[in-house]
């Protein structure tokens, strides 16, 4: 029986992220150091290669959520006319940009010289970055990653991406005032590729029983792959984490005293309720071992041409889970059920994210009816606490776990 052993690498990650934000913050006053705000699914390698510091408003919004200051910041955007029905990340970020309030050492993110928006995660970012452009009056690079309705990505969409990424290099170089360094770019792509593969390997280690880490931990350890992919620091960090997880596997260390049930998670975390959810599932000896959300940051295109790195990159940036239709999502979910030996799936129906959430009812029904996988739908929001009820969600989790348990017993019997 394993005791609860904390993951040591967490401290190192906090150090890494703290250093990154300090560096970014100090760059705000350095006119030679350019800063770009970029969406989480954006082609950041081009920025790293050009020496531009990337800032991720989504990550900053999530930090505000975990620090429980997002409601207050959202209210600032709402006063300006942004409806409460709009994405809470966008409201958090716009409120932060307007007021200077934020989670980074008590204030907002360092101001951008450039905005980079890629709509491979949702259409909301298009509108959100348009607003940022109006606030900061800096260039906006928009990368349109066509949603892939079928399972196989369309070649004309990959061509379209490639043309846009080439143009982005020129646009970035106009901002830096320096020619785009192709060699540095190729190096960055390689670093990024290694980090993405490591991130996938780390998540795949959770296939082991007991899982050496929980998805609630994975949410936290996501920060470097989002913000620092394409840097050496990111690789070093994930190598450390991977080594520690392998060690835990060898010693049989899990995250629960007894891991009886294994669950998947769909959609963004409920950032302000990570602890509550983690404890509630633990009470039922249930571990969350995989999530579509954290895996979104390690998708690589299926038939990527590695001899042509820019082409492969163009395909990769189309290849994510939420840039795909429901047939693709069904396939991914069922593969997760199989590979991670799942007893059920928890789907966060996230009011903020229509791109991620609409279609979940269909997928939930498919998992239940076609594959016999119990599904729990939690109606909530990634950052907006105002419609959450511990009691209601807690009761639903308890009822769901009863269903999971009785199904498992039937299967054993």
């Amino acid at each position: 029986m394993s005791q609860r052993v904390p993951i040591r690498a967490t401290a190192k990650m906090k150090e890494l992220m703290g250093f990154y934000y300090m560096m970014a913050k100090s760059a705000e006053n350095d006119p030679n150091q350019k800063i770009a705000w970029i969406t989480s699914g954006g082609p950041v390698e081009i920025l790293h290669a050009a020496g531009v510091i990337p800032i991720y408003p989504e990550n900053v919004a999530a930090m505000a959520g975990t620090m429980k200051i997002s409601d207050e910041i959202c209210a600032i955007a709402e006063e300006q006319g942004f409806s409460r029905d709009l994405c809470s990340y966008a409201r958090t970020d716009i409120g932060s940009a307007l007021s200077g309030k934020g989670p980074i050492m008590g204030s907002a993110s360092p101001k951008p010289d450039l905005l980079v928006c890629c709509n491979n995660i949702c259409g909301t970012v298009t509108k959100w970055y348009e607003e940022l452009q109006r606030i900061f009056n800096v260039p906006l690079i928009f990368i349109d990653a066509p949603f892939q309705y079928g399972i196989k990505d369309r070649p004309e969409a990959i061509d379209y991406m490639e043309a846009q990424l080439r143009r982005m290099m020129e646009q970035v170089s106009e901002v830096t005032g320096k020619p785009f360094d192709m060699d540095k770019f190729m190096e960055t792509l390689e670093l990024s590729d290694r980090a993405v593969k490591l991130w996938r390997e780390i998540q795949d280690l959770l296939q082991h029983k007991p899982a050496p880490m929980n998805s609630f931990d994975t949410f936290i350890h996501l920060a470097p792959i989002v913000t620092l992919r394409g840097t050496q620091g990111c690789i070093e960090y994930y190598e450390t984490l991977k080594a520690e997880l392998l060690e835990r596997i060898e010693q049989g260390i899990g995250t629960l005293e007894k891991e009886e049930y294994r669950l998947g998670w769909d959609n963004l975390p409920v950032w302000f309720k990570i602890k509550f959810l983690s404890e509630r599932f633990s009470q039922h000896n249930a571990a969350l071992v995989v999530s579509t959300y954290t895996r979104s940051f390690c998708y690589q295109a299926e038939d990527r041409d590695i001899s042509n790195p820019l082409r492969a990159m163009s395909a990769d940036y189309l290849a994510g889970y939420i840039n795909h239709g429901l047939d693709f999502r069904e396939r991914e979910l069922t593969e997760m059920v199989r590979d991670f030996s799942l007893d059920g799936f928890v789907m966060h129906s996230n009011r903020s994210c229509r791109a991620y959430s609409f279609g979940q009812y269909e997928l939930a029904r498919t998992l239940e009816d076609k594959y016999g996988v119990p599904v729990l739908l939690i109606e909530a929001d990634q950052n907006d606490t105002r419609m959450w009820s511990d009691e209601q969600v807690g009761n639903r989790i308890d009822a769901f776990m009863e269903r999971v348990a009785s199904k498992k017993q039937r299967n054993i019997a």
Partner: protein
Amino acid sequence: MSSNIKSVLEPFEKVKDDLYFFARQAKQNGEKVAGFLCTYSPQELFHAGGYFPVRVIGKEGGTPLADQWLQQYACSFAKGVLNLGLTGDFSFLDLVVFSHTCDTMQNLAEVWRRRVEGMPIIVVSTPNLNGGDIALTYLKRELTRVKEEVEKISGNTITDANLLESIRIYDMHRNNMRKLYEIRRNNPSLLSGTDMFTVVLSSMLMKKEEHNKLLEVLITELQKVPSQKEDKPRILVGGSVCQAQGFIQSIEMSGAIVSDDDLCMGSRSYVIPPIPQGDPIEMLAQMYLSRIPCPAFYKPGYDPAGPYIEKIKSGNVNGVIFLQTKFCDPYGFNYPYLRKRLEQEGIPSLLLEVEQNQPVPEAFRTRVEAFVETLIK
């Protein structure tokens, strides 16, 4: 209103009682009907492929079937049309066409494909980047692919000559509609906003050839009427409502006249600059990319307040009412900026959140009346 104009309007009004009166008539004659969910669907292609394209619209009432597949926070347009898809109300359609615009429409297309039986669907991957050669190249390839798919499904070959003819008919239609808008901009009392929106609605549900003929008669009749003095406050409606009739009527009952709009299913879809004759696919791609962009799209350098201010100035508009469909993100994000710009221009505006599947609520009337009162000097 003269009795002449009244009788000219009669055929348009058939769609008020039965949206798909003309579609059903065509079906009885053995024709094929394609339903499109968005004005970005390249109707010309479907027209050239032998289909009668009609707009897919919801109707008043609850959406119990759609509620099983879409969350509470999905917009009433998506739920309304999905519900009718699931009840079989659209089973007369031979084909359904979606266009990639917002996240809701994207996932609606997916749920529809998996749950609504009986007809094939085509999704047009409209680029969300509007403008520039890169997007143009992509859209040309996408329209070529769609053309081939239409040919496969319909069994009809779409020749360049067919397609050019369809483009000509649709162009003529847009010109006629623009003329009508222009007449009303100068002299709104000639035709009420309520009647205008019946014309707009019917334009999406009748054959363009027929609609053109009727429009030409209507325009000729309106041009005969001497211009009248009008002291009702002029309102421009903006926002994201697809079926505006009830709301327009309610606004006009409060003593104002709706003289113009910035609605996607209104003036926006008729504003396309002339495109030189050439390869028809290239023409279509250029046309759809040079429209006033859907708020879900990004167009470099485009100012969403531009069309508002231009219409307000050229049409002496006194106030703006935003009819905002609840849970419509693209318009929701534009609103704070539009409100600010209108304030700077000294134009009063009112935001009203609407549900498209519900009758006009009493609170709507009350707020409109209060707003219109402030405009009457």
